[in-house]
C-alpha cells in the first residue's frame, strides 16, 4: 500500500517559510472544504434541533421585522411602501449575513479548540465553517428575498449577474474579517463584546432600514467611509434595478485585497501560536 500522507513540521525558519506554511494551510483547507461544509451544516441542524421550522424561525422573525420596520419607515420618511419594503427587506437579510459572519467569526477558533489541539486539521477550515454556516442561513432567508422580488415586481428590472458579483465580493470581504476576528479573539477574550458593539453601532450608521438622503455633509461622510454601506449597496442596488454607487465595486475590490493581505499576514505570523492561545 502506498502511503501518501506525509507530515513535516519544523521550527520557524523565518517569515518566508511561515508564509509558505500558511499558504499550505489555505490549500489544504480548500481541499477539505467538504469537511467545513459538513461542520457548518451540522451547526445549522443542531442549532435548530427540535423546532418545527428549523432555521426558518430566523427567517420568520426577520420577515416580521421587515414588515414592522418597512411600514414604520415608510411613514417616518414619507416614502411609498412599494419602495421602502423591498429596500428594508433586502437590507435586513444581507445585513444579517454580514454582521452575523463577523460576530460569529470571533468564535471560529475558540470553539474548535478541542479539534485544533489534537488534530492536524487546517485552521482555515474553521473560518470557512463560519462563513458557510452563515451562507446556509442566507439560503433560508432567500425566501424573503424571492418574495420581495416577485411581490414588488423587482424581477422586471433587477440585474442578477451584478448582484451575484456583489455577493461574491461581499463574501470575500467578510471572510477576511472573519479570519481577523477569529485570530484576535483567540488571543484577547474581550474582543467578541467589542466586535458586537461595533456591529451594532454600524447597523445604525449604515442605511439598512433608512433611505440615504442627499449626499451632503455628514451623510456623505457616513456613506463614503462606511465599508458596510458599500457591501450592502453592491448586492441591494442591482437587485432593486438601480446602479450601485460608482465607487462601490472599486472600494470592495480594494478592501478585499488589502484586507486579505493584512488578515493573512497576521495569520502567517500567529499561526504557530494560535493553538496555544486557546
Amino acid at each position: 500500500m502506498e502511503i501518501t500522507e506525509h507530515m513535516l513540521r519544523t521550527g520557524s525558519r523565518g517569515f518566508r517559510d511561515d508564509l509558505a506554511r500558511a499558504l499550505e494551510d489555505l490549500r489544504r483547507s480548500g481541499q477539505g472544504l467538504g469537511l467545513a461544509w459538513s461542520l457548518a451544516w451540522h451547526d445549522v441542524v443542531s442549532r435548530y434541533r427540535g423546532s418545527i421550522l428549523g432555521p426558518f424561525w430566523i427567517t420568520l422573525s426577520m420577515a416580521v421585522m421587515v414588515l414592522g420596520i418597512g411600514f414604520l419607515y415608510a411613514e417616518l420618511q414619507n416614502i411609498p411602501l412599494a419602495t421602502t419594503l423591498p429596500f428594508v427587506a433586502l437590507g435586513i437579510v444581507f445585513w444579517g449575513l454580514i454582521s452575523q459572519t463577523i460576530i460569529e467569526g470571533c468564535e471560529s477558533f475558540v470553539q474548535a479548540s478541542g479539534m485544533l489541539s489534537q488534530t492536524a486539521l487546517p485552521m482555515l477550515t474553521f473560518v470557512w465553517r463560519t462563513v458557510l454556516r452563515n451562507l446556509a442561513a442566507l439560503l433560508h432567508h432567500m425566501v424573503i428575498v424571492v418574495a420581495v422580488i416577485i411581490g414588488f415586481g423587482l424581477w422586471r428590472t433587477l440585474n442578477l449577474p451584478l448582484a451575484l458579483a456583489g455577493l461574491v465580493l461581499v463574501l470575500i470581504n467578510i471572510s477576511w474579517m472573519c479570519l481577523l476576528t477569529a485570530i484576535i479573539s483567540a488571543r484577547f477574550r474581550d474582543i467578541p463584546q467589542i466586535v458586537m458593539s461595533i456591529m451594532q453601532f454600524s447597523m445604525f450608521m449604515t442605511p439598512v432600514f433608512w433611505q440615504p438622503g442627499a449626499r451632503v455633509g455628514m451623510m456623505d461622510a457616513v456613506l463614503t467611509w462606511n465599508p458596510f454601506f458599500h457591501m450592502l449597496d453592491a448586492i441591494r442596488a442591482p437587485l432593486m434595478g438601480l446602479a450601485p454607487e460608482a465607487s462601490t465595486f472599486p472600494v470592495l475590490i480594494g478592501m478585499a485585497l488589502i484586507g486579505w493581505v493584512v488578515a493573512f499576514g497576521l495569520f502567517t505570523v500567529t499561526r504557530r501560536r494560535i493553538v496555544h492561545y486557546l
Partner: protein
Amino acid sequence: MSPRAPSPPARPDQAFISVRGLTLRFPVYGYDAKSLKKHLARVAVGGRLDQARHGSTTVTAITGLDLELRAGDRLGLIGHNGSGKTTLLRALSGAYEPDEGQIEVRGKIAPLLDLSLGIDPTATGLENIRLRGRIAGLSARQVDDKMDEIAAFTGLGPFLAMPLKTYSSGMQARLAFAVATAVDADVLLMDEWIAVGDADFQKIAHQRLLGLVERAGILVLASHDLDLIRLYCNKVMRMDAGVGSEVVSVKALDELLARPSVR
C-alpha cells in the same frame, strides 16, 4: 544535529516517525493578559499595573527530544504527570508546531487522545458517527461505507437514532470508541489505553484495539500502567520534565525506571 539534515532512508511504503531536537514552548497567559482593554490600560499607565496577573510566562514542555520509530515499533511513553507525554503526542498529531527541531511523520495519523472529540451530545448517535468520521479524515462516502460496521460494533441498535444526551455514560463511550477506532491508520497515538463499557464490551473493544494496533505500522502509547506497556509495547521511552530518555527495548523497562532521572 542540524534540523535540516536529510530524512533517513525508509521504504516508501512504510510508516515512520522521525523527531529531531524537538523543543516546544508554551506561552501561558495570566488572566488579565487575555483582555485587550486591560492591555491598553496598562500601556496607558506605563505598565505599572499588577504584573503577576498580567504576565505571560513561557513554559518549556519538551526540550531537545530525539525519536526515531519504524513500522512495527510500539512505543510506550512513561513519566510523571506533566513530564510532557501528552504534549509529545499532540506534537506528533500535527497540532503543535515545534519551536525548534523538526517532526516528520509518514503515514496516516490517528490521534486517539480524547474520545469525546467532536462529539455533540444533542445530535443523534448516527449523526455523531458521521461527524466524528468526517473529522477523522474520512470522506462522506467512506463514512457511509463504514456506517453499518460502526453501528453494529456499538451494539446500540435502535438507540443510534436517539440523541446522545439520552445515553448512559457507558453507551456514550461505546459510540465514541466505535467511531474513533473505525479509521485505518498507519500511526496510532494513544493517551492511556482506552477501556470502556461493561465487561463484555471491554473484551470486544480490546480485540478491536489489538486489531487496530496490528494494522497500524506504529503505536505510541502514553500510560502510567506499566503492565499495559509490557503487554502492548516493544519499546519504551521515559520522559522527565520535558526531556526524553533514549528509546530502549521494553525488556529494559525496569532498568529505565531504576535510573534516578533522565537528566
